[in-house]
């Protein structure tokens, strides 16, 4: 990682003042709404204003480990990475990498109520499904109603968790009402849900079983159509009637099924595939040095962490000094360098992923708490205070998942670093299912694990730390596996949805402070969005200086933004 990263001012005035560190190619127009109540998202696109000629093709190399099923139902979580963004579109695109910058998609604008318990979307006019039928507000209402009618299609628990109460369509408007302030769920319902056509999904097997229906010939509004799909390859062809005239630029997208990273990495190295989305070990020799056109940029999005069991039944890990000692003893640079080949940046004890979420990160507070650099001496004295030394170590075991070789390598480094402070770590590799079972039910001393994230640190931190996500030992917890129960932190999370922008930043900083005070989770490295790209023929990629979308091909719906930007250089002549 480069030490400095350029961020782009993409939000309203109040925010861009805070994000004063931004510099560089900020040619983008400030487009999206600030998060205050009662604002409209306005038309806009990112930096790539230039228009390109259509033509050319692109091949994606993203290992699946299996051949394609050629199902495209966006309600099926196993196949929606190949249908959302390609064929189906969301209402609004929210960019995690640009401080929630919004790009209106099927909804041309929206309006929150003052208390953020209801939202009115205005639908874009003249959008057609790729079978020629017009897109209407009814389709949107039907999509969300399906998720209510068949809970298994409600992949983000909108009707149960977010408190969605009703979705109604009238004219070109769709109104959604909620039981409580629903600001943080905007990312889910506006950005992650793909809108489906009512005229297809309200008949036959699609209506009877929208969760298991196969949807082999998907009808969407998106930039591409599937033509044809076989077990070994999905070919997408440009939708000639896409609502953004002149787009997409590339005529064809090839998405071959790769069963293994090896061949996928070979094809990436040789340039046969131009868009990579997986880990390439020794990336310099195997990829970057193979061609001057090969590039990589993998932005961090979430944490990988040591999860200690805080339940009093686990005597050692429920003691604060032990957790403090572990966090202080870790030389995270070394873990990232040896365990992850230097391809993941280091994490910090606040749990706030930097530089992605820099504005929530309080460097001064971290330094004041002594977590800005490893401090094995302090760790040693903390352990000595409990009566443990290198000669008389505390025995702890950490569970991890078999086959995650980079995690194994990282844990080997961790083990080495904990030894001198008086902790004897045993690493036990478990099969995924066994690991999950023990993690969920709290049957571990330490676990190595990473959570999913969201467009601000709130999402990951709330999952990890909110007491409602916990459960007694022996019962499955939903996300709070360490069993962290803190009323003050809960209150912070409860305040977040109704807080204004500055207030939200402040709340996250306070949660970061709690992370350093109580050490409920010990982040080690930051998970990244693996991304390799070849510029010989393809231009318009997201880059560090223009992070207009999360770059890995498995990100939905971000993949659509990339598809709408990339173009073939040879087709321009």
């Amino acid at each position, binding site marked *: 990682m480069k030490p400095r990263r350029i961020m782009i001012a993409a939000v309203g005035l109040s925010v861009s003042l805070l994000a004063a560190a931004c510099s560089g190619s900020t040619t983008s127009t400030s487009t999206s709404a600030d998060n205050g109540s009662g604002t409209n998202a306005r038309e806009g696109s990112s930096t790539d204003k230039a228009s390109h000629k259509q033509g050319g093709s692109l091949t994606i190399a993203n290992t699946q*480990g299996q051949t394609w099923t050629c199902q495209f139902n966006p309600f099926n979580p196993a196949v929606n990475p190949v249908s959302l963004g390609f064929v189906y579109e969301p209402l609004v695109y929210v960019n995690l990498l640009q401080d929630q910058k919004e790009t209106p998609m099927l909804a041309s604008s929206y309006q929150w109520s003052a208390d953020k318990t209801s939202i009115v979307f205005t639908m874009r006019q003249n959008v057609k499904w790729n079978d020629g039928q017009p897109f209407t507000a009814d389709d949107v209402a039907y999509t969300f109603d399906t998720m209510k009618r068949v809970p298994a299609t409600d*992949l983000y628990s909108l009707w149960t968790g977010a408190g969605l109460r009703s979705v109604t369509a009238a004219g070109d408007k769709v109104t959604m009402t909620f039981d409580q302030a629903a600001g943080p769920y905007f990312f889910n319902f506006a950005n992650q849900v793909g809108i489906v056509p009512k005229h297809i999904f309200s008949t036959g097997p699609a209506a009877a079983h929208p969760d298991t229906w196969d949807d082999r010939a998907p009808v969407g509004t998106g930039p591409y159509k599937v033509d044809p799909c076989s077990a070994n390859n999905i070919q997408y062809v440009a939708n000639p009637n896409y609502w953004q005239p002149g787009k997409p630029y590339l005529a064809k997208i090839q998405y071959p099924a790769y*069963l293994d990273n090896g061949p996928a990495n070979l094809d990436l190295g040789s340039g046969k595939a131009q868009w990579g989305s997986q880990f390439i070990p020794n990336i310099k020799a195997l990829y970057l040095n193979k061609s001057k056109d090969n590039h990589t940029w993998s932005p961090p999005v979430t944490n990988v962490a040591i999860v200690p069991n805080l339940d009093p039944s686990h005597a050692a890990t429920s003691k604060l000094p032990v957790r403090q000692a572990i966090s202080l003893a870790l030389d995270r640079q070394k873990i990232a360098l040896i365990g992850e080949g230097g391809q993941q940046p280091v994490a910090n004890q606040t749990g706030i992923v930097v530089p992605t979420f820099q504005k929530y990160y309080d460097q001064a507070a971290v330094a004041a708490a002594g977590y800005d650099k490893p401090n094995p001496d302090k760790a040693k004295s903390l352990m000595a205070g409990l009566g443990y030394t290198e000669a008389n170590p505390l025995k702890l075991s950490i569970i991890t998942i078999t086959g995650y070789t980079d995690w194994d390598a990282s844990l080997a480094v961790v083990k080495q670093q904990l030894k001198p402070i008086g902790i004897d770590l045993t690493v036990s590799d478990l099969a995924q*299912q066994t690991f*999950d079972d023990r993690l969920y039910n709290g049957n571990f001393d330490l676990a190595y694990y990473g959570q999913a994230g969201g467009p601000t640190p709130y999402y990951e931190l709330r999952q990890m730390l909110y007491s409602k996500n916990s459960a007694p030992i022996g019962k499955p917890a939903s996300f709070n596996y360490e069993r962290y129960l803190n009323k003050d932190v809960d209150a912070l999370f409860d305040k977040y949805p109704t807080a204004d922008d500055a207030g939200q930043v402040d709340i996250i900083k306070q949660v970061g402070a709690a992370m350093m005070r109580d050490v409920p989770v010990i982040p080690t490295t930051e998970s990244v969005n693996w991304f390799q790209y070849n510029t010989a023929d393809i231009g318009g990629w997201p880059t560090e200086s223009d992070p207009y979308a999360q770059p890995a091909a498995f990100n939905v719906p971000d993949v659509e933004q990339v598809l709408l930007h990339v173009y073939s250089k040879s087709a321009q002549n």
Partner: protein
Amino acid sequence: MPYLLRRLGFFLLTLWAALTLNFFIPRFMPGSPLQALRDRTHNKLSPAALEQMLTSYGFKPNENVLVQYVDYLKNMVTGQWGISIGATLGEPVTRIVRQALPWTLGLVGVTTVLAFLLGSLIGTVAGWRRGGRLDSLLPPAFVVTSALPYFWVGLLLILVFSVWTGGALPSDFNYDSGMQPAFTPAFVFSVASHALLPAATILITSIGGWILTMRNNMITTLAEDYVRMGRAKGLSDRRIMTAYAARNAMLPNLAGFAMSLGFVIAGAILVEYVFNYPGLGYLLYNAVQNTDYPLMQALFMLFTVAVLVAVLVCDIAIAILDPRSRERDRSGR
């Protein structure tokens, strides 16, 4: 006929036992279908939604085990094998199997037959000219190769013929993914070139057994009186070798061959895995990795049935070919 009836009864009994084990073993494994679905949905679904999803995918976790068991037996027999809950979430198991089966039959089936024919031929010639140049060269060499592990030979072939040659022979997958399946020369060539290395791996590691047993059988048979009598009658060497010696020497091998045909369908899991060949073996590996219970059950069922059918066919063949098996029957033993 009582012999055949008894074999048939035995077949049904083993089949039932295998199916029953196949029902209970996955239920003793760590994890559950619920947890598999939880993984698939990235842990974002509410518990109620997960329950509903489980029923959508054909599970009845709250049903009596006995009822589930009867349903399961019925479904296995009628070919309703359920819907995948692995990484191929939502795909009917029959469809997945149908897609993978031809590749395994093509690759492993053809090579098994080829290994048997080639092995028997080499074994016959080697046994006929015992101590000759062929006999002192081929059998020992192939005994060594047959002792090598599948995956190691596979990796070696990939290194030599794919990596060192700069990808002259493809080392993974069943055909070039840029192509559409069609009966064109280019596609057939692609399939053949992709099958070459895995086929060579199986051939190299399995042919040795056939050579060795065939050669040894030949040597025993050549000492028989009827061979001597053939010579005394002045028959040609070739005729004695093929019609008198080899024909009898092959009998014991036929049983083994029938058995190995039964194992074809299970694929050569390691070979398919090393070469990323999307056949049944690879499928099984994936199903276990992703705790895809319906797919796992269907595959194990298929594998057992294939072996049992092969054994049954072998029994029948022996009854026809070897009069002694029927004789014994009649004498009441």
